[in-house]
């Protein structure tokens, strides 16, 4: 979604731009011809749609435990006319839970990636744009962050901040910051020696103007790709954190990760309780990955397809 919204082209910035012009348009055309990219885009679009329209699509309200009486210690009711996917172990409608689960994954995934991107890109911009000791100082901190495994970092942050959806977002964002910082810095550094930057300097443009007005726009491609790929990881990490009990403490919020936890002791009687949310997580992550990879190829000027 972030990816899709960003795609419609910079032609809007330049009203006189002819149709079919511009690197973004070319990338969009290439993306449309890639089956994997289309599959990814469809999955992502479905995921967003479900998340946004959950209240409309879901047959019931989430986490009502209305049918708790039908759940026995030895069995959970399976699919029926009223409940297409059956009930969960707490007596709520499973389909409703899954649909609402998309909501929290989307919100937490997008917010955390946005925060990670903003902070990481800002650090990368300072490091790559200014250079010198600023670069050294920032990148050493980033190296330290990067040396801690992402999930471990997220777990520590979540543990320190306490259990809340905000801390989950910050935890995941913290794990993404070094990725974006390094990516943007590398992209800026690789452009520094390019002819067009020298040409801009020969025109007397200020360093700040060159970095913000020229080098940064040249880096949006790789950053956009990375953001899409990172969203896949974020969806998994949201589930992982709530699986570990570090998620939103509010039990009535439907969450795929928590559904997995609750399914654990009923794996034999009702495997669908684990399989369905698991499949949702996997498919969503796959969608973002497919879209990201396809986007990477579409934006790569060397790929000629």
């Amino acid at each position, binding site marked *: 979604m972030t990816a899709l919204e960003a795609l419609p082209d910079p032609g809007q910035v330049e009203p006189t731009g002819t149709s079919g*012009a511009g690197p973004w348009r070319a990338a969009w055309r290439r993306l449309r011809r890639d089956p994997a990219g289309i599959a990814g885009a469809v999955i992502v679009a479905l995921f967003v749609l479900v998340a946004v329209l959950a209240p409309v699509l879901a047959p019931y309200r989430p986490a009502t435990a209305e049918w708790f009486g039908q759940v026995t210690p030895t069995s959970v009711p399976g699919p029926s006319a009223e409940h297409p996917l059956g009930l969960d172990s707490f007596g709520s409608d499973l389909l409703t839970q899954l649909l609402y689960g998309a909501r929290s994954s989307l919100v937490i995934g997008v917010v955390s990636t946005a925060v990670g991107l903003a902070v990481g890109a800002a650090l990368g911009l300072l490091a790559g744009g200014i250079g010198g000791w600023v670069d050294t100082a920032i990148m050493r901190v980033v190296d330290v962050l990067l040396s801690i495994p992402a999930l471990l970092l997220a777990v520590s942050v979540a543990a320190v901040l306490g259990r809340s959806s905000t801390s989950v977002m910050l935890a995941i964002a913290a794990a993404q910051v070094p990725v974006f910082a390094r990516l943007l810095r590398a992209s800026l550094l690789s452009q520094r020696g390019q002819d067009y930057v*020298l040409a801009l300097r*020969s025109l*007397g443009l200020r360093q700040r103007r060159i970095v913000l007005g020229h080098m940064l726009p*040249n880096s949006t491609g790789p950053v956009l790709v990375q953001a899409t790929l990172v969203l896949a990881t974020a969806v998994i990490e949201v589930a992982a954190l709530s699986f570990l009990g570090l998620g939103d403490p509010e039990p009535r919020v439907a969450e795929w990760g928590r559904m997995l936890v609750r399914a654990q002791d009923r794996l034999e009687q009702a495997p669908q309780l684990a399989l369905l949310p698991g499949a949702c997580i996997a498919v969503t992550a796959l969608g973002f990955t497919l879209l990201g990879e396809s986007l990477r190829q579409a934006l790569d000027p060397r790929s000629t397809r």
Partner: protein
Amino acid sequence: MSLLEVEDLRVRFTRRGAADVTAVDGVSFSVDAGEVVGLVGESGCGKSVTSLAVMGLLPRTARVTGSVRFDGTDLLTLPPRALAARRGRDLAMVFQDPMTSLNPVLTLGRQLTEVLRAHTDLGRAAARREAVDLLARVGIPDPRRRVGEYPHQLSGGMRQRVLIAIALACSPRLIIADEPTTALDVTIQAQVLDLLTTLVRESGTAMVLITHDLGVVAGTCDRVNVLYGGRVVETAGRRELFAHPRHRYTTGLLAAVPRVDAPEGTGLRPVPGSVRDLLPWARGCAFSPRCAHADDACRSGDIALTAGPADGGPTGTGERAPHAARCVHPASGTPARAGGGAA
């Protein structure tokens, strides 16, 4: 006083763990207002480094000494900010490779208006109109449409025209063109060169034209400085240089130009050796290892740039010698094969 006076310019690159490299070893030349001056020489003779030094665009590892006076102010001692304010407005540069010298993700309009808005107080709309005008001036057809296009939609020749438009945008008083036609097709080279010289002459802009192509020099320059080993080895008016080259390197270069009217079966006559066979100028003529006329006199210390007896022109201080060469055994009279292209 000339518009640009480069005196004893030296550029040394310091490298960690290796000996320093002297790329420019005491270059002096001057450019009058409205004059087109050529810097000629083969790869590695210091042409590009000289131009970057004048513009103050060398990396920090470069040690630059000497003086570069532009309109009386020494650019080398100017604080970076003040120098940046003059770049693009007073002096501008046209680079060699039009394919990589434009930002691929911005429209031509953006790249043109940016310079205008940085150095003038034109508003957005006015800058845009000016950009269209500039594109029209450099002969881009349908400029109103082109202004919204991206670099990859233009051919190499068109892109070089755009770069010329950008360099000329703020009507600078001096343009440094570093091999402006080298990366272009031969058929386009003449067009672009024509355009550049026409525009420069029209607007009274002075130009330093850096090239290795003597044909380019013959067609455009008022004065020519031949560089070798980071120094000017010969300086003369264009006609004079082609008619009576004096330095042995210059005669070698002229003899090496292939000619259509040469008798059939005549081979190419390259200058033997390579630029790497350098003698430090302090010990004698840097060209002597490659020179057929060199003897011990050429290798006994620094050689001064001296005006030839043939001209008898004024060589007083401040006045430029009309024709001077840094050679112990200068060629006299006409070269082996006179450069007829000079006319």
